[in-house]
C-alpha cells in the first residue's frame, strides 16, 4: 500500500525530508510506526503523534491506500 508521509519539526531532520511516498505492508498506524522506527532509529527517541487525513489517529487505526499521514512532535519553543 502506498501512503503519503509528512514529517514535522525535528522529524524532518531525522528523516532528511519533509515528506515522502512510502510503499508499506503496514495495516495499522502502530505497524507503520514500527516500520518507521526501524528505518529511522532516531525517531524512537522523539515523542510524537500521528494523524491520518488530518485527524489524530490511534495506534490501532487502520490505514488505507493513499492516506496522508502526518507525524508530529509537540513543539516547546517560545
Amino acid at each position: 500500500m502506498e501512503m503519503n508521509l509528512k514529517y514535522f519539526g525535528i522529524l524532518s531532520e531525522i528523516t532528511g525530508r519533509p515528506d515522502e511516498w512510502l510503499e508499506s505492508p503496514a495495516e495499522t498506524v502502530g505497524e507503520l510506526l514500527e516500520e518507521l522506527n526501524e528505518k529511522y532509529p532516531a525517531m524512537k527517541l522523539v515523542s510524537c503523534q500521528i494523524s491520518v487525513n488530518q485527524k489524530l489517529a490511534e495506534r490501532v487505526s487502520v490505514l488505507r491506500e493513499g492516506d496522508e499521514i502526518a507525524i508530529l512532535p509537540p513543539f516547546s519553543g517560545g
Partner: protein
Amino acid sequence: MNEHYERYQRHFTLTEVGEEGQERLTRSKVLVIGAGGLGCPVLQYLVGAGVGHIGIVDGDQVSLSNLHRQTLYTSEDVGSDKSTVAGAQLAKLNPMVKISSFSEFLNLELALKLFPDFDLIIDGTDNFDSRYLINDAAVITGRPFVSGSVFRHEGQVSVFNYQEGPTYRCLFPQQNRPGFGCAETGVLGPVTGVIGSIMAMEAIKVLLDIPGVLSGQLLILNTLQWTSSQLSFSRKEEQVALAKTRVSHLQSFTHVK
C-alpha cells in the same frame, strides 16, 4: 470617552467587534504566561486592542539573546525583570488597560491562585513542564487557554479547554522524551512574530465569540514554505482526568508542609 472612540476606531467598523465587542474587550481579563518571543506580540496586540486587565507572568530577566525576537525590550533593559519591563512599556502603549506583572516562574500554587481571576490564559512559555502545568491548572480552574509553540521554522497553535473542547493532554499525552526549545535550536524573530500574532487573534476570537476558534484543531505552519495544515482531535476524558490529579498532589503537598 473621546479617546476611547479614537483609539479603537479601526474596531468599530468591523462587524466582528463594533461598539459592543469593544465593550466586551474592555471587560475581559487575560493572563499571559511567558513574556518572550510569543508573549511579546500577544501582549502588544491585546493591550493595543483594549483588553481591560492583562496579567503577565514571567520570572525571567531580559538577556541580549532575547532582543532579536522579543520586541518589548531594548538593550537598556538587559538584566531587568521581563514582566516589570513589559508592564511599564505596555502601560505607555495603552494607559486604559490595567496591567499586573508577576515576576515569578509559574508553579501550580501560583496558577491555581491566579487563573480564577482571568477569563482566558495564554501559554507562551518555552518548555514542556510549563505547558502541562498550564493545561492542568486551566482544566482544574475551568479556563480556556491559547497555546502556541515554535520549533525552528515551524509553529503550532491551538485553543485548549474551550467550551468543553479537548485539552493539551488530549493532543499530546505526557511522555518522558526530550523536547526542543528556542535556546537549543535557534529561531528567527519573525517566526515567533507570526505565531504570537496568530495567538493574539485567537484570543480576540475567544473573547468576542467569533466563530472559527482553533478548538479541537491544531494549526501547523511552516514559515519557509508558508504551507499550513490543520489537524483535528477530540477530547479524551481519561486525559482530562489526568490533569485533575495535580490538585490531589498539591493538596497532599500543602498538607505535608
